[in-house]
């Protein structure tokens, strides 16, 4: 196990090094001269040349990558062209709403999707099974921002149950915090939930056809004990794998959901950076979110032995 963990960590370091190289290449290939942008409209050629020397922009590509990577390792993701603030500061200011939104989406999604998948598999062919499958196909097909507008129209504009847009931090009170997050969380989690419900159903159906399930039923265990204690535990590995790989859907969804619901998080920061062509922010966000995605999938791989002790690395 330890050897496997070390091997995976080394592989993760290589993958992240490549992602960092890719992200740096984006900066390198970016059209325009960053020195001219920093110097402003009134700068002379000498001013621009001086900034070039100061920032090391005349150095060879690999030397510049080395300097940049060293800065990243020390937590320096560069400076925003538009606000002139460090990218790490900007991301730090916006991380709260994004983490709150993502965690709430995860809680709602996993709280509904896994039980629905289990029920659908245990009552295969019933109306609830068909309903779960229909919702799963619709969840895959309706883009999150389309669903977001339909949800706002129904629950905020017509029924007036929830706020249309905006974000309230936990310090402003628990009720406003939840009120502002509930609709975006459901919208963000629907595609992810559809995927997990479908995989849960498929994995459970596979397990429920096994002999040991029949044995458990024959010895008189209740349906709940058979489903949760015997079947779900053995169906956990594909479900957990999809929970990990599906995080990409949440990360992509956060960018759009925060835009529709005007939540001042990392997604909104990214969209603003795109509109202003603020490349250091786009790179910083890409690097950070990719790292989160890679680490989550690493943890998912590690969790296999917890769910199935037979798994040996």
């Amino acid at each position, binding site marked *: 196990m330890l050897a496997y963990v070390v091997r995976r960590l080394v592989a993760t370091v290589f993958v992240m090094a490549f*992602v960092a190289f890719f992200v740096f290449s984006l900066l390198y290939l970016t059209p325009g001269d960053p020195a001219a942008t920093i110097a402003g409209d009134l700068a002379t050629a000498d001013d621009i040349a001086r900034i070039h020397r100061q920032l090391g922009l005349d150095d060879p590509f690999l030397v510049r990558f080395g300097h940049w990577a060293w800065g990243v390792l020390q937590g320096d993701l560069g400076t925003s062209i538009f606000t002139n603030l460090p990218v790490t500061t900007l991301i730090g200011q916006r991380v709260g709403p994004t983490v709150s939104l993502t965690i709430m989406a995860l809680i709602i999604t996993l709280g509904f999707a896994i039980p629905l998948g289990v029920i659908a598999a245990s009552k295969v062919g019933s109306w609830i099974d068909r309903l779960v499958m229909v919702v799963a196909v619709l969840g895959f097909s309706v883009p999150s921002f389309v669903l977001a507008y339909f949800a706002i129209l129904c629950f905020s504009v017509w029924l007036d149950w929830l706020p249309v847009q905006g974000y309230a931090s936990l310090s402003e009170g628990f009720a406003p915090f939840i009120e502002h997050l509930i609709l975006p969380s459901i919208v963000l989690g629907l595609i992810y939930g559809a995927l997990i419900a479908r995989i849960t159903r498929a994995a459970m159906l596979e397990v429920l056809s096994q002999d040991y399930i029949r044995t458990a039923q024959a010895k008189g265990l209740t349906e709940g004990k058979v489903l949760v204690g015997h079947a779900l535990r053995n169906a956990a590995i594909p479900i957990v794998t999809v929970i990990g790989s599906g995080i990409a859907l949440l*990360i992509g969804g956060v*960018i759009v959901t925060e835009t529709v619901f005007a939540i001042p998080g990392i997604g909104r920061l990214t969209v603003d950076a795109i509109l202003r062509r603020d490349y250091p922010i*786009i790179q910083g966000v*890409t690097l950070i979110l990719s790292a989160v995605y890679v680490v989550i999938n690493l943890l998912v791989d590690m969790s296999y032995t917890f769910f199935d002790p037979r798994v040996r690395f």
Partner: protein
Amino acid sequence: MALAAAEIAPVVQRHWLGETARRHPTVMIGVMLLLAMAAMALLAPYLGTVDPLAVAPVKRLRPPSEFYWFGTDSYGRDIYSRTLYGARVSLTVGLSVAMFGTALGLAIGLVTGFVRRLDLVVMRVMDALMSVPPVLLAIALMALTKASLGNVVLAITITEVPRVARLVRSVVLSLREQPFVEAAVAAGTGFWRTLLRHILPNTIAPLLVQATYICAAAMITEAVLSFIGAGTSPEIPSWGNMMAEGRSYFQIKPYLVLFPGAFLSLTVLAVNLVGDGLRDALDPRLARRL
């Protein structure tokens, strides 16, 4: 014999079509919807539309009526016409990405699955590309280039290639151990002939299913990119652009967003239904579970 086969063929074909419709009604719904969307995109100029780019400030923000079926936007452009022409953008992106993505991924997957020395290097690059969430990767790539349909197709294709390559590679890895491939190699069949005659045909079925899902994902990603301002030029009548323009007026004029949103969802649903049907037909064991 040939005559008998010719007589039987239409009967078998009719039977097959009827059987498919009976066993997979959702697939037939998907095919019908997709054909309707394709016809709408192709025949847009003949379906009572006007110039989708024609600006008319005096007619701005008109609600749906007998003159403007889906209303007009903030520039006075006809939303019905823009929605119909928008199908062209969505389908072009979806089909192009599915075509280029599968072709490139197939080539990479075939070669890396069969040539072990290349596998180590190329698949690590693919792994690294897969470690960036697709929408984020497409955004980062679009930030480098100017807004255009070609660049959108290119950016989304790059995000999809690693997944196809990995799928094809896994199929090739299992195929190369099969007796029929070993027999071909033992009989002295050349590298390219083995690859193209014995391996390639067996990768087509899973690839076809994957292509439909890529098509659906590409249409959504295009709409997301346009919606956040990183996709096609704003004046192009794509469904993502229309929703982005309409969002400021959404609370008072919801139709600005709902019509393009509904058409986008219907088209993606149609492609997904066709993809599910293909998967069920090609892998009946999996079909019973998924």
